[in-house]
């Protein structure tokens, strides 16, 4: 198999004119497979994606693609990169076909190969019927699907997708996760999102960022072990919800006739009524990691 390795070494990013660090000394060693990059808004996920995509440079540290420093030789990674940014635009007067041909030309895909590839991608993203409509008439979800298609045009060896399922319906999200799973074997895929279920379904490796720091890097199974024996559930009356939110780390609230069924992440039993819940979820493991990083008590 061809060598595929992305090495992120002590990467920090500070924006000009500010003391704020969007990223602080992030180090990651990534090879083929899907890395799920999780974190709340403002964690630095998109900044890291932009650095890897060579849109912006790190303030400190290095990123190497197969041993080559991408700050010095950005075309080495650009030539094999597929990138779906979190926010992107399209040319409103082109239709989907024309826009994808434009992007294929920019990426250096041969016209005949581009024609076939675009046909496949339009089927995949379910926009075949809309291919001749101008992009200015597209809804947000349709535009997102065009974004996914353009990221895959050049059959990339490294695929970076930043919040890719925003605006997609359930079917679209399932299809996208399956596609990622198919592609992952021979590629480096980095899926950046705040939607834990997307990562849960697709990734074999998870990195959690918070406030620019790398909080945790492990497999989904190891992450789940962190919260084993720490998920509690019981029923509270509705009027106690506000107090419960302030006191505990709530992972789930379900309203039923007998009250609010809540699940809480805590080191020890938080209430005499609480009993240990069944299998913890990845979302709970994620919440636990973020809270622990913030220094919040999970055992109030």
């Amino acid at each position, binding site marked *: 198999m061809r060598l595929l390795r992305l090495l992120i070494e002590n990467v920090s990013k500070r924006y000009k004119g500010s003391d704020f660090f969007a990223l602080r000394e992030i180090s990651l060693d990534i090879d083929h497979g899907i890395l799920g990059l999780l974190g709340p808004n403002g964690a630095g996920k998109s900044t890291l994606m932009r650095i890897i995509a060579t849109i912006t440079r790190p303030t400190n540290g290095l990123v190497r693609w197969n041993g080559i420093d991408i700050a010095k030789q950005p075309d080495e990674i650009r030539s094999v990169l597929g990138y779906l940014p979190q926010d992107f*635009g*399209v040319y409103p007067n082109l239709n989907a076909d024309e826009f994808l041909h*434009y992007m294929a030309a920019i990426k250096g895909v041969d016209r005949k190969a581009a024609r076939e590839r675009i046909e496949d991608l339009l089927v995949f993203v379910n926009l075949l019927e809309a291919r001749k409509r101008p992009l200015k008439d597209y809804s947000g979800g349709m535009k997102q699907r065009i974004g996914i298609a353009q990221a895959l045009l050049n059959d990339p060896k490294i695929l970076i997708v930043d919040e890719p399922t925003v605006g997609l319906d359930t079917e679209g999200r399932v299809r996208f996760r399956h596609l990622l799973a198919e592609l992952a074997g021979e590629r480096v895929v980095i899926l950046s999102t705040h939607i834990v279920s997307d990562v849960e379904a697709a990734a074999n490796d998870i990195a959690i960022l918070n406030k620019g720091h790398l909080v945790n890097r492990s497999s989904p199974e190891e992450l789940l072990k962190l919260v084993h024996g720490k998920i509690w559930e019981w029923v509270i009356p509705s009027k106690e919800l506000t107090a419960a939110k302030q006191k505990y780390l709530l992972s789930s609230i379900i309203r039923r006739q007998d009250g609010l069924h809540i699940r809480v992440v805590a080191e020890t039993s938080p209430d005499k009524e609480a009993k240990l819940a069944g299998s913890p979820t990845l979302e709970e493991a994620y919440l636990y990691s973020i809270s622990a990083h913030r220094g919040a008590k999970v055992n109030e």
Partner: protein
Amino acid sequence: MRAGYWNKVRTYRFLIILGLTIVMGYIFVPAPDANYVTLGWGSSTTFYRGVYNSAWIGALVAMLTGMFLTLLGFYVVNDSVKRDEQTRVGQIIATTPLRNSDYTLGSALCNFAVLSTMIAIVLLTTIGMQLFRGEDSIIDLWALVTPFLVLVLPLMFFVAAIAILFETRPLLRGGAGNITYILSWLIGLPLLSESVDLFGIIAIRSSMSATGLAKYPELAQIQSILGLEWGFPQGRTLATFTWQGIQWTSELLQTRLLLVGLAIGISLLASVRFSRFDPARETRKIPEALPSDVLDMNEVQISSVVRLKEIQLRPLDAKALQFRFEPILFAECRLILRELKELPFSGIWGYSVAGALIIIGLLFPLNEAHGILLPVSWLLPVLIWSKMGTREAHHQTDQLIFSSAKSLKRQLPAVWLAGFFLAIVTGSGVALNLAFHGEWLGVLAWFVGALFIPSLALCLGVWTGSSKLFEFIYAMLWYIGPINRMEILDFMGVLRGSVEAGIWQFYLAITIILLGLAFIGRKWQIQRG
């Protein structure tokens, strides 16, 4: 209003235009030993002007500021509605009880506040200028300030209102409005300053003249100067008189109040048929939901399984990933053709006009074709050229394009070539006419013009990220050069004098510099972080 105000005064555009205005004001009040003059009366032995007191300097700078900012001030403030649209704040505004008339009047007042801020800063520098020139150290605030209050501020309100009116009329928005405004200013300015004394020049000069004549009766025989006149003879003596400022007559004040009333009327007129950010009232239609957008929960799982089996993304081999330039050039040309749809006169009508101009340019007598049709042919595509270098930022495709390999060497030349082809095609009728008549020097000058236009557009687009500066500069060059027959600015080579003088060589050199700057600017854009 406050948010809109701060948005505008915190821009580079505001600072640059303010800076230019202050510099122009400084230049317009020459030092006593300068070798140029700007306002006064000159004979062979003597130059007469007022002492640089508050009245004289205040009036001079106010006149200049009024003229300057009626032009450039428009471009500082003509994006209020556009900003509300782009930020989607407009959609929130649309849901409030705020009436259209309140919105447009409020936006005009906001624009006026921005321009007034510029005036206030210029006024402060004018005080400094008087002290710096040192002829009269007594600051008479009333004499200094009143020309700005009475002459300039009403003008600024008028410009503020016009800017809002343009923004609320579909045909006058964006580039079309930018070009229309500057051409109106260039053509209308001489008419308006004579007929209605828009800038107060006639009132000021006649008042100054009356004071000067009282002290120097010989002024009646001497030509007055207004504007830059170089080569002030060293032997001439300077004769000064003390002018105490203009007498504000009720007639003068009424004209200014009329201007304010007109501005209010225009602001309210702008609210008529204002779309109120309703996309259904724009040309774009709301898309109907396609079957794929409709979620049927019962069929999700089955359709997912069935559909996934059909998806096969064929891998690409190395041969398919070898870059060729023609597809990207073709794609850029197609992008330009699609943008023609955005022009006020688009579709079949626009293509027909362009086609007709090419044919007429070929068949008409050469002088008319060259002197009239070529400038017209090379004015129509200005709104396409002005987008060169700005599309990526404007449409937010920069992340997609700059993360692709070698975009500097691949995409940028294609953008330029597409603009160059547009110039070649639209001007081809005249070029062929020149060739048939054996005017090879004219063909060469025409060709350099076709190189120069997209280079200017690309360079300014890349560096400013906006189409405005190119639209402004191109309209000025176009009007003053080929239309008003100023040879040094004849970048199209339509004037026999400029072609024979080899002016095209000058533009060829500038073209090379512009292309280099465009390349450097784009490289910086791609690399910055």
